[in-house]
């Protein structure tokens, strides 16, 4: 069963951080990534650039697809990154979520929909199975 972990928090906070402190911070994230890989649960995960870099496209019919600068919502807290994990149940997903090395904010955990019953065939091949640690 797949779960999406979204990392939400205030942006910034790293302005006064030295390069050495930043590298030390990255070690925590690398360690978390490596642990999820070794456990065979890691599918994908990324950190995002700040919300000010966002563009937003309106959905709907072709003529309605207007592009605007900025994120969808100008909120104090923004999506900062995510992990997509293959876990056996919600409890396992929550255990991983508790270990995400985020310093401030929240981790939202949500199950991914299963569309196979509706006839959806996933066109991905190798990308559809969890990456295994070495």
């Amino acid at each position: 069963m797949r779960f999406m972990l979204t990392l939400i928090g205030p942006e910034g906070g790293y302005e006064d951080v030295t390069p050495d402190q930043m590298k030390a911070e990255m070690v925590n994230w690398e360690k978390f990534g490596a642990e999820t890989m070794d456990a065979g649960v890691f599918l994908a995960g990324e950190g995002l650039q700040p919300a000010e870099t966002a563009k937003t496209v309106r959905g709907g019919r072709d003529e309605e697809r207007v592009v605007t600068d900025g994120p969808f919502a100008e909120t104090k807290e923004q999506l900062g990154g995510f992990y997509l994990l293959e876990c056996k149940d919600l409890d396992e997903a929550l255990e991983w979520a508790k270990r995400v090395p985020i310093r401030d904010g929240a981790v939202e955990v949500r199950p991914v929909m299963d569309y196979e019953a509706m006839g959806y065939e996933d066109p991905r091949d190798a990308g559809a199975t969890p990456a295994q640690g070495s």
Partner: protein
Amino acid sequence: MKYLLTFVVDERFAWEATPEEARETIERWSEFDREAVEAGVMIATEALEDSSSATTIAIEASGDRAVTDGPFAESKEQLGGFCLLECENLDEALEWAKKVPLRAGHIEVRPVRDLSELGYVSPTPAPAKAAAR
């Protein structure tokens, strides 16, 4: 360069689809996914269950981690799904965003942070058909 497309949808908009409409919708999404895979840009994509299925872990300044039921924000618009793409630039990412078969709502496009200068390499696998590029 990687871009994350997040689909923001109004969950109050309950869609009473006939089986035929549901099938057509699935076909449109399958077509989009196939196209993105064939172009060698698709890394990952998923649709999420409703936000009522969410569990949120709040990270306190003290390091405490409190688990609560429900999404982070009880807003009417919620994350409904996402798509992680490998594109040449923002323009290409926006072209794909315009093709996402979302009937209502918004698609937010954001570049992924490059942390390679800090020695961090993302463990996310390359697109399913990277060789096509």
